[in-house]
């Protein structure tokens, strides 16, 4: 956190290597939020680029007193994702949900056995499919809480809504997602 704020100050003084370090530190996290929200790798890549472009342009408006840089960046990401969702709503209505089935990604966790990795890969694909069926408000709440594992207070800052709304969205999102997965035939083991 402290280091991020320091890097931001260096960036503002025109230090290109500090910006490069910031990009390297946050690319993976931002890409994951975008991927989980859209369920599409290409869109996630494009949106991640947009996020960093916007962050780079508005870096001067970041105030560390309002929260960590990561939270601020997540907030920028969230706003872009919602814009993107609204912009592509009409396109999506004509798309088949089946076309949006995500590919099972390669897990990085080397500590797991291959069969566990395969199961987790399958689960990840099912969860991703389920997430795309949630409304954007519930989807972003679940992604931030359970996939990005942010605290409630951070989610509150990112979404810019009261604590009660955050709690309610997370709860509804989880229940809805659990029901969707049950409908898809995913049963608790």
């Amino acid at each position, binding site marked *: 956190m402290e280091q991020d704020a320091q890097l931001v100050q260096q960036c503002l003084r025109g230090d290109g290597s500090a910006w490069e370090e910031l990009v390297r530190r946050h690319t993976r996290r931002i890409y994951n939020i975008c991927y989980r929200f859209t369920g599409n790798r290409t869109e996630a890549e494009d949106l991640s680029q947009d996020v960093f472009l916007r962050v780079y342009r508005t870096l001067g408006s970041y105030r560390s007193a309002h929260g960590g840089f990561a939270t601020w960046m997540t907030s920028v990401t969230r706003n872009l994702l919602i814009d993107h969702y609204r912009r592509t709503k009409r396109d999506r209505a004509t798309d088949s949900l089946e076309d949006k089935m995500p590919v099972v990604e390669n897990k990085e966790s080397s500590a797991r056995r291959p069969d566990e990795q395969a199961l987790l890969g399958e689960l990840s694909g099912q*969860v991703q499919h389920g997430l795309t069926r949630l409304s954007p408000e519930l989807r972003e709440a*679940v992604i931030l809480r359970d996939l990005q594992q942010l605290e409630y207070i951070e989610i509150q800052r990112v979404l810019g809504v009261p604590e009660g709304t955050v709690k309610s969205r997370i709860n509804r999102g989880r229940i809805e997602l659990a029901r969707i997965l049950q409908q898809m035939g995913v049963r*608790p083991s």
Partner: protein
Amino acid sequence: MTPMIWTCELTEERLSDYIDNLLTQEERTAFLQHVPSCANCAPLFASVSHLVKNLHSIAEVDAPPRLVYSILDQTLGPRDSATGWQAVLQWFRGMGTRRFTYGMASLAATFLILVTASGFNWRHPKAADLHPLNIYRRADAQVHLVYARGTKFFSDLRVVNEIQSRLRENEQVPVNQEETLPQPTPGKNPGSTDGTRPGPREQNRADGIYRNLEVLADEMPVFTGLLGGSAR
């Protein structure tokens, strides 16, 4: 003070508060008194807590390696290509990724297995041993050796199987030995094949089995007893 009553509606509204440990002690007690025994709440709680556990176990996906460079190009502009030591350092930095390391490790393991299988002597290595022609010859010899050993193994198995089946047949015969043993026929010429004595073919086969048993007895002492029992 009356104890708090938990309801199914409260479960729908505040299930995540329990999972995320946000309930007060009193609420928690009321939750635990109601949910496990409620036909509506118990399955809901099971499925949601299972989902949360699963969500936490899902690993992050890898961002494409080019993404960082695309972002830097868009924000800082195209970078000058590194030269000299910087280029070398950049090249080595790329080798630090876990995927590259795994790839190289599996490649090295495959190479070691192939070279060892081709008969390369690791204790006394020679440069000539790595010549493709020599590798081919050694691999060819190894393949033939494995094939010959395999053939011999199956042939031995067949012999042992035949011996065992013969011995089983012999064990069954003595039950009616008195009745089945050929009786000497008065007036019959020796060597004639009138059906009462074993013919030359049967005799040869019995001799073959005995020879196999002798070989086996040399190799495996456990067959010595059998040899004694089936002496001619």
